């Protein structure tokens, strides 16, 4: 009698726990997928060559630049083209962002109030560049469904900000391919539930040791004919680079 009672209660408990367990497992899954995609995309450190095209209804502008990164704390950009902008550099060091302007030989610190402003006129904000907020750290993840995108089977994942996180978006939908963890699409929503911008990853090619979507296109939802295309031309991952590289002195001497 006692054993029967025990096994019954055990069953009951299991039944109560199982769905919860299932949800926890799913959350862990989503967490792991986003983390893996992010790590793959970023690498521990990197060095690369990028081309950014800003497309506007009446005109277009292309900027070429070199980039260096170490973790999420350090980041440096050096503009190589067009000629008028050449020599400008941006440095992110911990939570500060600096700009070096060779034409007037001045270093300018970008104030926090500028973080939501466009970077170099593109549809990226200074905040995107700073990566102050992280999709890995600041959001709760939830697996929604499986969808096919650009011929890849993708996990559709919903990100909602953690209560204590200071972030811009109220919701992000991410599409990450099941094999290879390509971030193929992201939709960013504001607090009113409106779509603000869409980012798509395409042009999957081998960069250094890994295959990645090498072209990121960002399109604001409310401005037709506006978009920014960021293309990774070359990329080296997990290079040997020290935090000391990311200094104001170095910024002035980049080439």
């Amino acid at each position, binding site marked *: 009698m006692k054993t029967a009672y025990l096994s019954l209660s055990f069953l009951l408990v299991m039944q109560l726990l199982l769905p919860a367990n299932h949800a926890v497992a799913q959350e862990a899954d989503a967490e792991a997928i986003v983390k893996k995609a992010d790590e793959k995309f970023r690498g521990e450190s990197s060095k690369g060559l990028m081309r950014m095209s*800003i497309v*506007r209804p009446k*005109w277009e*502008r292309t900027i070429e630049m070199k980039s260096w990164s170490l973790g999420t704390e350090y980041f440096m950009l050096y503009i190589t083209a067009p000629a*008028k*902008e050449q020599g*400008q550099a941006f440095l992110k060091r911990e939570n500060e962002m600096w*700009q070096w*302007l060779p*034409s*007037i030989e*001045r*270093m*300018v*610190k*970008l*104030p926090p*109030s*500028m973080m939501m402003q*466009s970077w*170099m*006129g*593109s549809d990226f904000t200074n905040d995107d560049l700073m990566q102050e907020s992280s999709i890995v750290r600041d959001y709760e993840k939830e697996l929604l469904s499986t969808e096919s995108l650009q011929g890849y089977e993708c996990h559709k994942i919903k990100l909602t900000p953690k209560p204590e996180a200071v972030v811009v978006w109220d919701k992000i939908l991410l599409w990450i391919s099941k094999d290879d963890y390509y971030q193929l699409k992201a939709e960013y929503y504001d607090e009113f539930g409106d779509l603000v911008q869409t980012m798509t990853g395409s042009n999957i090619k081998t960069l250094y040791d890994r295959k990645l979507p090498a072209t990121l296109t960002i399109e604001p939802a409310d401005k037709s004919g506006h978009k920014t295309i960021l293309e990774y031309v070359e990329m080296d991952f997990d290079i040997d680079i020290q935090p000391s590289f990311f200094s104001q002195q170095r910024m002035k001497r980049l080439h």
Partner: protein
Amino acid sequence: MKTIIIIAWRNLWRNKRRTLITAASVFFGVIFSTVMSSMQEGSYDSNVKNSVRFYTGYLQIQHQDYWEEKTLENHITYDEALFQRIQQNAMVKNITPRLEYFALASRGSATKVAQVTGINPDMEKEVTNITSNIDQGRYLEKGDAGVVIGSLLAENLELGVGDTITLTGQGYRYATAAGLFPVKGIVDFPSQELNKTMVYMALETCQQFYNAPDMLTSVSVMITDNDKLAEVQNQIGSLLPEDYTTMNWKEMMPALVQQIESDRAGGYIFMAILYMIILFGILGTIMMMIAERRRELGVMMAVGMKRLKLATVIVIETFFIGVLGAVTGILGSIPIVGYYVNNPIPLEGQTAEVMESYGWEPFMFFSSEPRIFYLQAIIVFILTVVVAIYPVTKIFTMKEINALRA
């Protein structure tokens, strides 16, 4: 008719005290509401003037998309011939072309967001009278390579006259704009917002800085009479190229318009209550008067005076009381209003801070607009007409026989 008026006038002075007390209630009501409306209208005027002067102008000529999206992309072109045609309009006082866009102002590691405004120094000073706000240093000259900055911006960046300010930002089509400019002067506006952000630059220097040759973001137009706003707007609109537009200050500052309207409505309610009290005051007097003179009225009717004539006498009496109160009230308020128009009451403490944060001068201004005065006269007239209904109906329904026995 003349006799009736004379009789009414004499009747009034048969009981001086009653007449004077009633007239006094009108007198104080008129003084009070004149001074109150004068104060209200005065502060609206000054708020509008301050805002129009520094922010928008009465009218602005812009590219049609500029208001929606304030970028250099939506610019208009500097066109001397067009400006001259606009200035030929007799109702246009003066105009000033501007190129406005934000940039980062910095010194060392301190950085602030600044509103860089390229101006024609000569035209701008006519419109904004900015030279009177120069606190230190000097104002800009035509083609000046230096800048004039707001007092709080100077303070925040620890800049003084003669120091160099670093300005960076994005110019036309996102070309990087970067420059070093000597600070020639520091301006101190009533508006803290302007003090925090303003950087004035000569137009040519600004166009060069933003890589925007010959471009303007707006032309501000000051007009001689705010009441002609719509008319001038139409006339200027007809001169402009197709993708240009005009906006008036009411369109550009709807919040200010709403604020004035709701405040004015509040004033009207207050005034309505005040006059309601006066109305019942007069009505009370008239009722007492009719009751006291019941026998007299009965006698008049009995000896053959027509009811209509008798009613006219009473109506004119009522009217005289109103006129007496209104005229003395208006005359009495003129010196008060006149004094405060020229000597606005300075405000202190928190009220002053709030006003300054709106960009308004911290004074209680008064207006001497004629409308304020004759509005009181009209209201008092309507009051007396309303009050007169009582004696008129009383006279027409009165039975002589009863009245004689009273």
